[in-house]
């Protein structure tokens, strides 16, 4: 098993998941790259933390009234699932179809939206857009409950074309209006009462009432419409039929997937991969699973080009650190704080800055966010009592035949944290720090709590490096 194989698998698991421990990486390398990709694309049971345990311990996650309760509930799932790509895709769709709590005041329905994203995460883009159009949280978010026969509200129709499928420049203002007409009557049950409660942030008399889709035939404009050059008595599903057939839609969705999973910046080599993904999109009848398969199995994805070419998003960073530290594996006092940490880092779950979602890539990093990122990960990985940290030190301990010098400690930690490749300057600085702490003797019989703490201190510092903050 070569270091290159381990490094490639680590790359895949950072992108298609939230990272993996060395033992997991070795198992996956033994399984084979393409086989692992297939497992990721075809998830089985998630084996995530059971709902009954969460709801018994966390009364707030049972009622799901609060924003951060819902966010932390989802983070529990991301931390404990066996299907990391499924959650990563749900996060991708949440970033793309960004829906915010502030207008809805309805965390349970936002979680239902995430369940919809998860259920259709890698299936047909057509199906997903239909389900998105029926999602009551989206309906309220973009005012489709106010889109009536003879009195259209264009908001959802416009964003469906501009932000969710084709991108600006690929349709006309008339197309927007015709699209909106086609989605008249697509609303939620008891829309008037639910919208009133949402606007007043009302929890009375008996807490929130979660939402469901309702189609009102009498409020649907069944007249003739012309959309992207085609004419008919289109309903919403007909519009989506037309949208998904557009090359602009293929380019839009494949580019967004590329930027989320491969690299923040699209190079010439990246453009070629996007073209392949677009071909797969049409060949597979718009199946996201097939598009991702093309990406993950491409020579480009496996090359050095996209390696560490993305800034970890805050949710990825938090979940990755917690998974590696082995914490929060059971209902834990204060877990709702996890959602707050991602907010402090700039990505509050269900709190996108606008309907356009988050500005990703290097924009994740500013001085305030960086401090939060470093502090959180350092706290998780700098405590040798955390089971994942203990396992990492145990792993290191198994491979040593003498006390580890400062430089040897740095190399061992960088290897097990990624492997990540440190710049010479960073490695030298960390080695000096480790040298000042003293040698760590991890051999059985010699290993002490002080040795473990030395390694944990070094891990804490390593998480502050540029290299660790990239995926």
């Amino acid at each position, binding site marked *: 098993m070569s270091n290159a194989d381990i490094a490639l698998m680590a790359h895949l698991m950072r992108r298609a998941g939230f990272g993996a421990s060395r033992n997991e990486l070795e198992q996956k390398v033994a399984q084979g790259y393409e086989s692992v990709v297939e497992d990721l694309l075809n998830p089985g049971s998630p084996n995530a933390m059971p*709902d*009954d345990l969460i*709801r*018994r311990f*966390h*009364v*707030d996650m*049972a*009622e*799901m*009234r*609060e924003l*951060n*309760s819902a966010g932390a509930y989802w983070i529990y799932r991301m931390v404990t699932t066996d299907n990391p790509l499924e959650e990563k895709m749900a996060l991708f769709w949440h970033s793309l179809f960004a829906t915010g709590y502030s207008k809805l005041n309805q965390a*349970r329905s936002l979680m*239902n939206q995430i*369940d*919809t994203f998860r*259920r259709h995460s890698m299936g047909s883009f057509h199906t997903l857009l239909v389900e998105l159009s029926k999602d009551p949280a989206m309906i309220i978010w973009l005012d489709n409950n106010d889109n009536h026969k003879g009195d259209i509200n264009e908001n959802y129709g416009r964003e469906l074309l501009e932000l969710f499928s084709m991108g600006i420049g690929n349709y006309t203002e008339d197309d927007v209006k015709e699209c909106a007409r086609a989605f008249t009557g697509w609303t939620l*049950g*008891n829309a*008037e*009462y639910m919208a*009133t*409660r949402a606007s*007043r942030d*009302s*929890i*009375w*008399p*008996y*807490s*929130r*009432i*979660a*939402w*469901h*889709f*309702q189609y009102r035939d009498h409020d649907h404009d069944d007249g003739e419409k012309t959309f992207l050059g085609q004419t008919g008595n289109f309903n919403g599903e007909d519009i989506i039929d037309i949208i998904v057939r557009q090359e602009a839609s293929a380019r839009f969705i494949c580019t967004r997937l590329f930027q989320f999973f491969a690299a923040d910046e699209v190079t010439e080599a990246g453009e070629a991969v996007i073209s392949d993904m677009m071909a797969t999109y049409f060949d597979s009848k718009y199946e996201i699973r097939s598009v991702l398969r093309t990406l993950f199995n491409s020579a480009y994805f496996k090359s050095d080009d996209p390696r560490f070419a993305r800034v970890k998003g805050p949710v990825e960073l938090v979940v990755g650190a917690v998974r590696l530290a082995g914490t929060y594996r059971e209902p834990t*006092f204060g877990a*709702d704080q996890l959602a707050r940490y991602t907010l402090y880092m700039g990505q509050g779950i269900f709190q996108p800055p606008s309907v356009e979602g988050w500005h990703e890539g290097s924009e994740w990093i500013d001085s305030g966010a960086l401090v939060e990122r470093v502090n959180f990960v350092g706290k998780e990985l700098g405590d040798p009592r955390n089971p994942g940290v203990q396992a990492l030190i145990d792993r290191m301990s198994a491979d040593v035949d003498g006390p580890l010098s400062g430089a040897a400690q740095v190399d061992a930690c960088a290897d097990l944290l990624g492997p990540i490749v440190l710049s010479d300057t960073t490695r030298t600085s960390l080695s000096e720090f480790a040298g000042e702490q003293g040698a760590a003797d991890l051999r059985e019989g010699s290993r002490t709590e002080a040795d473990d703490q030395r390694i944990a201190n070094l891990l804490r510092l390593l998480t502050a490096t540029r290299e660790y903050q990239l995926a």
Partner: protein
Amino acid sequence: MTTAVAAGAVEYLKTIGLTTNQSGRGFTNPYDCAFTSDGRILILNRCDTVRASLVRIGMMNWEEDYLGEFSRGYGRGDGQWIFPVAMAVDNSTVVYVTDEQQHRITALDTQGNFVRQWGELGTDSGQMNAPAGIALSGDQTLYVVEQGNNRVQRFTTSGESLGMWGEAGDGPGQFNMPWGVGLDSSGNVYVADWRNDRVQKFTADGQFMASYGSSGTGDGQFSRPSGVCVDSAGYIYVSDWGNERVQILDPDGGFVQLLRGQATLSKWAQDFMSVNPDERNTREMSNLTPELPAHLDTPYLISSQIEPYFWGPVSVRLDSEERLYVVESNRHRIQVYQRRKD
């Protein structure tokens, strides 16, 4: 929704309570209720993390008059609570509250004065691990169910341990994260064996007598039962938490009746609606028991969408007139039922 009402069946009476984000009139994640001999209804408000500082016991009467509240506040000081679960009231109107986070029992009087507390994390006699349900027998013995130690421990009201029974497992007398406890008029003990999806019956000193139910959604089956109480005729009432319903069993454990919940506006809720016409008017034109999409069809998700149904029924208790109180944490209210006297 109930099954067909037969002679002697349990019928809906009314709903009490109202959501509140502040102290005073209203409930905040109610987790249990209890009754004093002078006619007060006590409601234990566990509160979620955002409103943790509001943890308290509210007081009202059957006529729904608000009678005040008391607590020592949220925290780890004497008499304070973090995650209170259940309570019992003794002959002297001292209230005993379990706290599953602090592994202890706290005793307060109804003016909020600290009386005593006992317990710490551990497995020895007098120690506890995540105490949940609590019940008080006629001879003033406290029965405390320990979620973490999978046992029932008996105490005097002074906090002296009188022994314990139970261990982890799914056999007779074994438990898996048990929650609520109730006593019948003979002093037998019924435990909601939460993760074993059953109710177990014991003698007062812990001899196994019977087990009722299995995992499932059918009549007489349970999903994570949270609470249990028994009336003077021996009928057993179980809050079937995971199925979001209440089941009634006969004294031999046979299925009798199912309650799904049929909440109406409480007096406090009517007061709210009377001064909020926008919500009242749009509510009146709504269908609050709609047909739902198939992907939202678990009991939990159905209850999140259909307001009259039970959502988070965490406790069932009977008052001195044998009215059945179903405490709903997620809906911040109590639905009250009573067996028809034919």
